[in-house]
């Protein structure tokens, strides 16, 4: 491969990859957040001491979550290729990367959000019951409201995790910064590219964390 100038690298290689990474990250977190919220609510409500205990639903989701979480991400991604292809029409590109990322992230977020929901004071829930709130109203007005700071920190945490997974997704043709680091950096013996990509990732993680902390502080 012909060597490109640094300027070309930055504008023709790194910048588009950076945009791709942000896209993948954004949509992954967005979708996983909603799916995760649904999972968290179901787990929270059906857990043994929940609002509507249901052993069967709880155990089933629990097992599925553990199953998904026990796959290393790259393996999960490869095993999902047929499904991904069916859903997005391709096994490479941005949408094809988002799907497996969501499959991996959603249960993760669900679990983390649930743990914050479980920490909402039992008495606050009981108080809501005592004035006749419905299960839906309790979830909406008490449990979600009280766990918002926790949910925010989960989203921040998941964004960082998604960024890491995005780079792994880059290995299987999704593009993005991970792809650059591997292809132009590692495989091409170009330390400059590899480490500058890493530097971008480091800065990105710092920014996410700073925003996350600020949001958490404001919400508390």
């Amino acid at each position, binding site marked *: 491969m012909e060597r490109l100038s640094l300027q070309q690298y930055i504008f023709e290689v790194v910048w588009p990859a950076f945009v791709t990474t942000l896209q993948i990250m954004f949509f992954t977190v967005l979708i996983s957040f909603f799916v995760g919220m649904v999972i968290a609510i179901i787990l929270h409500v059906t857990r043994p001491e929940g609002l509507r205990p249901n052993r069967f639903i709880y155990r089933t989701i629990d097992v599925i979550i553990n199953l998904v979480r026990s796959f290393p991400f790259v393996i999960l991604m490869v095993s999902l290729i047929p499904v991904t292809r069916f859903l997005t029409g391709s096994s490479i590109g941005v949408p094809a990367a988002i799907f497996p990322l969501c499959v991996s992230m959603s249960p993760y977020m669900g679990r983390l959000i649930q743990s914050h929901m479980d920490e909402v*004071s039992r008495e*606050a829930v*009981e*108080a809501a019951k*005592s*004035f*006749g709130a*419905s299960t839906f109203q309790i979830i909406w*007005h008490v449990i979600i*409201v009280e766990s918002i700071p926790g949910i925010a920190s989960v989203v921040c945490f998941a964004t960082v995790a998604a960024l890491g997974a995005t780079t792994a997704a880059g290995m299987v043709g999704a593009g993005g910064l991970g792809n650059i680091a591997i292809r132009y950096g590692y495989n091409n013996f170009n330390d400059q590219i590899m480490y500058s990509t890493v530097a971008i990732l480091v800065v990105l993680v710092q920014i996410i964390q700073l925003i996350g902390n600020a949001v958490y502080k404001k919400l508390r």
Partner: protein
Amino acid sequence: MIEIQNLCKSFGSLEVLKNISLSIRTGEIYGLVGRSGAGKSTLLRCINGLESYQSGSLKIDGTEIRDLSKQQIRELRRGIGMIFQQFSLIERRTVYQNVALPMRCWKYDKQTVDKRVRELLELVDISEKIDERPSVLSGGQKQRVAIARALALDSKILLCDEATSALDPKTTRSVLNLLREINQKLGLTIIVVTHQMSVVREVCDTISILENGKIAAAGDVKEVFLQKPDALLTLLGQERMRCPDGGGTYSFLLAEQQLDLIPAVYNRYGARILSTGTSAYKGEQFTEVTVNVKNENAAQLKDLFAKQQLLWHAVREAS
């Protein structure tokens, strides 16, 4: 009117309530007292359906709670407010939003909610904190907000689960005064679960003492405190006073304006005064006097009790 008959409840093989029977009159303040684990909180939670019961009957104004559907239980709870030891406010909402929440759940319109919230915060005397979060309030203030919230839906019954146990004595008194005030102003029936005997004397009209899931003693507060059944002494951590062997020993309760009866009892009937103690019931001072009289004077003394309409109790009858 709440009528409980032969109520039994168990968690698995653990019986927590055994054959509880009691009735609570509309407009009174009823105390359920006992040590922790005696079952009093569970009994309280049966009243608004937060706990179910296995057998027996619990009727509020003639409606059996166990027969109600989920929706009916929600309707029932609408008329029953509840406050808790840890206040259980929503920390991330302001005082205003906390008090408004029950009305929002029941779809009251905005203006009604706004008007009612302000009225209630006025009633519990905490209007100046309307836009604060609970985290900046003191314990007493939080409990006032919780009371306002519990009254938001025009409840007829208020359940208090150890509502003052996390408060210091001075704050406890102010919250209890508020409870007494709303009991009188709104004619609310209040059921108080507590292990603090001072609370019982301060607000209750009638009490039941629970021991291991059973009612060990019950009755009018002053009578129970005068009769001192074993269950009460256990709760107070007191020893039973030793009674002189001869004659009759009687305890009686005097209101403040009746105190001059003490020398009369002493002079006329040659009574030996064994003990006196002062305590307040619902804010009124009473003096409890225990005397020992010779057998031949006992009848006359009892005549005096009757004539003065005193509350009295024979610790040991004269022979």
